């Protein structure tokens, strides 16, 4: 009998939480034959992720997409039999009635809490630890990460081979870009821009627009749109239209499906990403990238940024490392670009490094497999 999974996702803001849950859910169904329900408390946000696939989710009835039963997580919880494996994501609070039903089960559900991704040292020491609950249930914490003692990263089977094959085939790239309406000048560097609001964006775009290289910047619809418009001196934008200022061409495109977003990352020479899901996908893309980390109170995010930079830049030359660290710090602190944006100029061999890093993390744990294995060990 297929193992039944329930994944609970509380959408805090943006697409990160639901993006990770959706990717994990699809992977568990496709590669581990799980019978899976995904409970999401904000289907409007989720609909943005599905819209590109032509799917509209409904609050009233579950929708089966790619084998995943997508359910609205209502504030008044219906009576639902708990699954064999219950995954609460990012510390969301499960419905008390559901927890009570878990406690009443003869064979207790395997209750896991999936935490946020971090490269910090302490993560390995916390991964897989129990969290005994007052009702006698045992919950376990799972931490994604970049080291062998963590849960690892989400990676679909054959992903890296598919990506390499795509990048080695000019026509694949060309066909994809054409399909999404992107036709960059052959001499322009292609960039994708997916980030949170950043007070320094205009300064960074100024630097690029005044340089010697031409850039075609693809901007999927999102929070940065208004700032980019302002830099272009416009009130609004039309999707697909290319706007030019100096050496920079800007093109807004519709929100992409996860698969198409992967292809965009693979197609670009450089990617600006944010949060968790696009951050990981940029690493699988094997291309240089700039990470806009989710800002936290007390600048706690900067510690996490540095922890990642520490592991990511380990194999770089001192010059490259310094340029990378300065650039990422400047971007995340909302400061002007450092060193005339050497990171984007192609002067540094960051593409080779990005591929090397991808090979390194490919050798680490696969998060979906780690979760499945944990459950199997528990029964």
């Amino acid at each position, binding site marked *: 009998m297929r193992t039944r999974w329930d994944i609970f996702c509380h959408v805090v803001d943006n697409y990160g939480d639901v993006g990770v849950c959706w990717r994990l859910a699809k992977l568990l169904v496709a590669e581990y034959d799980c019978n899976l329900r995904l409970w999401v408390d904000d289907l409007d946000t989720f609909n943005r992720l599905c819209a590109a696939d032509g799917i509209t989710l409904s609050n009233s009835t579950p929708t089966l997409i790619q084998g995943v039963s997508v359910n609205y997580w209502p504030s008044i919880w219906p009576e639902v039999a708990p699954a064999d494996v219950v995954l609460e994501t*990012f510390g969301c609070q499960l419905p008390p009635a559901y927890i009570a039903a878990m406690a009443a089960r003869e064979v207790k559900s395997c209750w896991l*809490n999936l935490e946020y991704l971090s490269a*910090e040292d302490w993560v390995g020491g916390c991964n897989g630890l129990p969290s005994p609950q007052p009702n006698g249930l045992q919950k376990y914490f799972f931490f994604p990460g970049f080291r062998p003692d963590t849960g690892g990263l989400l990676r679909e089977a054959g992903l890296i081979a598919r990506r390499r094959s795509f990048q080695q085939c000019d026509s694949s790239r060309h066909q994809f870009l054409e399909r999404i309406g992107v036709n960059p000048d052959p001499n322009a560097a292609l960039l994708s821009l997916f980030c949170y609001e950043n007070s320094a964006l205009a300064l960074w775009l100024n630097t690029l627009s005044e340089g010697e290289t031409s850039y075609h910047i693809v901007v999927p619809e999102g929070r940065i749109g208004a700032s980019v418009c302002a830099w272009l001196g416009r009130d609004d934008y039309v999707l697909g239209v290319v706007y030019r200022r100096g050496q920079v061409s800007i093109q807004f495109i519709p929100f992409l499906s996860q698969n198409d977003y992967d292809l965009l990352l693979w197609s670009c020479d450089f990617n600006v990403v944010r949060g968790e899901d696009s951050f990981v996908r940029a690493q699988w893309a094997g291309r240089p990238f700039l990470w806009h980390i989710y800002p936290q109170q*007390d600048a706690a995010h900067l510690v996490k940024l540095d922890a990642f930079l520490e592991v990511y830049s380990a194999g770089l030359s001192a010059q490259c490392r310094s340029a990378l660290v300065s650039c990422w710090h400047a971007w995340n602190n909302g400061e002007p670009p450092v060193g005339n944006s050497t990171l984007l100029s192609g002067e540094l061999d960051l593409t080779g490094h990005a591929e090397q890093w991808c090979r390194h993390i490919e050798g680490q744990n696969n998060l979906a497999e780690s979760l499945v294995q944990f459950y199997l060990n528990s029964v």
Partner: protein
Amino acid sequence: MKTAQEMKPNSVILIDGQPWMVQKAEFTKSGRNSAIVKMKLKNLLSGSTTETVYKTDDKVEPVILERIAVTYSYVADSVYVFMDEDYNQYELNEDDIESVLPYIVDGMTDICEAVFFEGKVISVDLPTMIVRQITYTEGSARGDTSGKVMKPAKLSNGTEIKVADFCEIDDWIEIDTRTGEYKSRAKAPV
């Protein structure tokens, strides 16, 4: 119920009907302004230890343990006997007092605390600072008086401890029972 973030070292929580003492609590920021606390817990009944993780706002059940002042009386057949001011005797096995055993010596006068869970004595806590006598140590090799150079010394019950190089046989020393470390030379207890 209290939240996990309210639990500090020496707090006791109830898990599956068993009292667990928090030995260590490390707080770390997770993502999106949430935080977790990693705890090292010791089962006060079995002495076993474990590590756990909680969200800082997770609910845990605190336990207030009853404590009674006692003094050490004697040991017989590996059963340690303590007595309160009303001459009530409390017996504890070696396993129950494993952490304080190195400091139990005949004739000790320290006011200890017998710890009770559900009416049953489960352990004994010593004062944070105790004074014990050195029964053997080598002479000072280098004449160091700074207290930074350490050497091994034995107490009357055979416990070995690192002391300052200038300490001699029959000296009384102060020991921190939380860390087991020598703190200073001391006067003989009255």
